[in-house]
């Protein structure tokens, strides 16, 4: 096909001509190659590394549930919570995990609306990551309520006590925001996967696989009369998810911002939380995709360019987060409020200064390294820096929550929170759950959106683009070339 020829001609010297965009899929791949490469991961033999890693993460998951069981059997006293710090690791972990999820929705919805075609190689895995992160997040508010057998009070369910939850409370908004987010993310992920499940169904050799993939592919046939409604549904879901994802961390930040506590009561919180969520989420996407692309040989689909783009997002959001940190200090000083000033001086110089400066180092200084193209294009260096960002963002939530609480208005009610082994193992265990789910996803579901990648390959019509096509089939190529050549 002439599309392949045009792809190789630009492949030869992508750096020399800045007006020509490098192709999104490398290695001169054709449509069928994408199917074989991505389906091959699911169809092939289980890689040797998979079982040991799975058993390891599975063990950590079991530990998480053992800790939760211990908590349920004994009570919240097994955690380090005590006056004045009534919220610590539980809510830190919750906010951390919810934030991680945001990158998946950003990639799948916002970049779709902005017609960022490079998203197609990474959106499936990022959306899966969103789901698993939200699952991990959901654990913590569920178990921190103390009387966990009354957790159903969170939902407006008619009950014999004849009481209803208070809808004027941001904590209840949070229940609605996070559960809506979880459901909509799942729907978006599943709808996006239907054509690829059909591909797996059509390629499946065993009866069981044919049945299972066939069941969940719902009888998808790839007819244009189906694609028409399918694409509209996908566009609408992207349009719905975009404000939704921005609302979720906004509402999470309301949990804090609507309280009168100095250190929490700040109007900058919603945008600051959303930027931080995207920042941490992209770091987690890189943390899981860099090993995955290496292990499964997907470097032609998830290219260095993809990694570089994500690094740029981290750099931008890292700067926003850094701006928010400094603006908090400015507001504390400019407000002239002694309590507000105290909280921030205490944050940077008090007993939790070590946590504050860990946060600043990881979140503000680390991403600055992404100004260098050399660093942005070295996968394992990116991987290391992404880990720093993950650590930094966990500390950000810890700093916001614990340092604002631990020195109450009266010095007689000052305290210092120390986590117990149960706190620590529950949090570590949530990583086990996250990675176990992700390993299962890698093994049994298509980790790259095949139908979407095919649509953006050179010489094929473009998903999300509406260039007129001429009927001789040379249209999309000609239109594509014309567009690519534009400076």
């Amino acid at each position, binding site marked *: 096909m002439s599309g392949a020829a045009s792809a190789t001609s630009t492949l030869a010297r992508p750096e020399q001509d800045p007006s020509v965009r490098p192709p999104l899929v490398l290695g001169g791949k054709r449509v*069928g190659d994408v199917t074989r490469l991505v389906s091959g991961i699911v169809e092939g033999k289980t890689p040797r590394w998979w079982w040991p890693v799975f058993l390891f993460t599975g063990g950590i998951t079991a530990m998480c549930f053992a800790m939760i069981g211990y908590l349920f059997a004994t009570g919240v006293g097994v955690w380090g919570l005590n006056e004045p710090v009534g919220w610590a690791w539980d809510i830190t972990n919750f906010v951390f995990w919810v934030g991680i999820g945001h990158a998946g929705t950003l990639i799948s919805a916002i970049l779709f609306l902005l017609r960022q075609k490079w998203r197609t190689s990474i959106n499936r895995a990022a959306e899966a990551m969103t789901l698993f992160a939200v699952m991990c997040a959901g654990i913590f508010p569920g178990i921190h309520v103390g009387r966990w057998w009354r957790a159903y009070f969170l939902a407006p369910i008619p009950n014999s006590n004849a009481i209803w939850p208070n809808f004027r409370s941001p904590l209840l908004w949070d229940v609605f925001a996070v559960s*809506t987010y979880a459901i909509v993310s799942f729907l978006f992920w599943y709808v996006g996967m239907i054509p690829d499940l059909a591909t797996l169904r059509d390629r499946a050799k065993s009866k069981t696989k044919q049945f299972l993939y066939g069941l969940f592919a*719902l009888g*998808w046939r790839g007819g244009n009369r189906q694609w028409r*409604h399918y694409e509209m549904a996908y566009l*609408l879901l992207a349009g719905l998810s975009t404000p*939704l994802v921005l609302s979720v961390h906004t509402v999470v930040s309301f949990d804090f911002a609507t309280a009168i506590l100095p250190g929490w009561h700040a109007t900058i919180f919603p945008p600051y939380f959303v930027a931080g969520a995207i920042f941490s989420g992209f770091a987690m996407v890189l943390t899981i995709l860099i090993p995955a692309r290496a292990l499964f040989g997907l470097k032609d689909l998830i290219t260095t360019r993809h990694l570089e783009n994500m690094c740029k997002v981290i750099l931008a959001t890292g700067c926003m987060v850094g701006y928010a940190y400094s603006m908090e200090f400015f507001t504390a000083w400019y407000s002239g409020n002694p309590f507000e000033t105290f909280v921030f001086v205490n944050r940077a110089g008090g007993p939790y200064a070590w946590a504050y400066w860990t946060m600043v180092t990881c979140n503000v200084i680390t991403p600055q390294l992404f100004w260098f193209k050399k660093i942005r294009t070295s996968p394992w260096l990116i991987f290391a820096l992404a880990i720093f960002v993950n650590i930094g963002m966990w500390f950000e939530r810890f700093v916001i929550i614990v340092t604002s609480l631990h020195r109450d208005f009266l010095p007689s009610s000052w305290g210092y929170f120390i986590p117990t082994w149960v706190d620590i193992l529950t949090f570590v265990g949530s990583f086990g759950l996250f990675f176990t789910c992700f390993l299962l996803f890698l093994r049994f579901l298509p980790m790259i959106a095949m139908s979407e990648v095919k*649509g953006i390959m050179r010489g094929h019509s473009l*998903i999300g683009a509406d260039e007129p096509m001429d*009927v001789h089939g040379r249209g999309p190529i000609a239109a594509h070339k014309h567009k690519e050549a534009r400076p």
Partner: protein
Amino acid sequence: MSQVSIPMPSAIGGVAGQFDTPGELLAAARRVHQAGFRRFDVYSPYPIHGMDLVMGLGRSHLGWIVAAAAAAGAVTALVLQWYTNVLDYPLITQGKPYFSWQAFLVVVFELSVLFAAFAAVFGMFALNGLPRWHHPTLTHDLFTTATDDGFFMLIEAADEKFAGQQTWALLQSCGASRIEWINES
């Protein structure tokens, strides 16, 4: 490339052809539509843009279903909050009025999005007739690569214009590389 047409079986669902590129499929769809056919569909591993236009299909109506669901979500949320916090269990918290509509907007937004997302998914299923686990194109040998890298067209025998061998010839003249009769399932 082109085959000699084989005799038409007695009970058929239609005639199908395979094309080598999306462009050829698009051109064929335009010709088949111009020839007056309405009950035909093209199958491709990814959506081909411009296809709706040449097949004479308008914009999907899914948007209206979703808009209605979003409105229903908003109303549900308002009624839920009004009933629980104003009518059934009025409780003064933080000195706010019982009907604090500003505070209720968050849940109104969330439920609108939730209802709309369900409508987008299940509305799409309904418009597409999904789930449907049996269809001639799901079992026929010709269509095995429709979800991989193949491009196909199926003209149904139920179409008024369908005329057996002539329709076969039409597909052939459109440049189909392989043509087969499809049994009704």
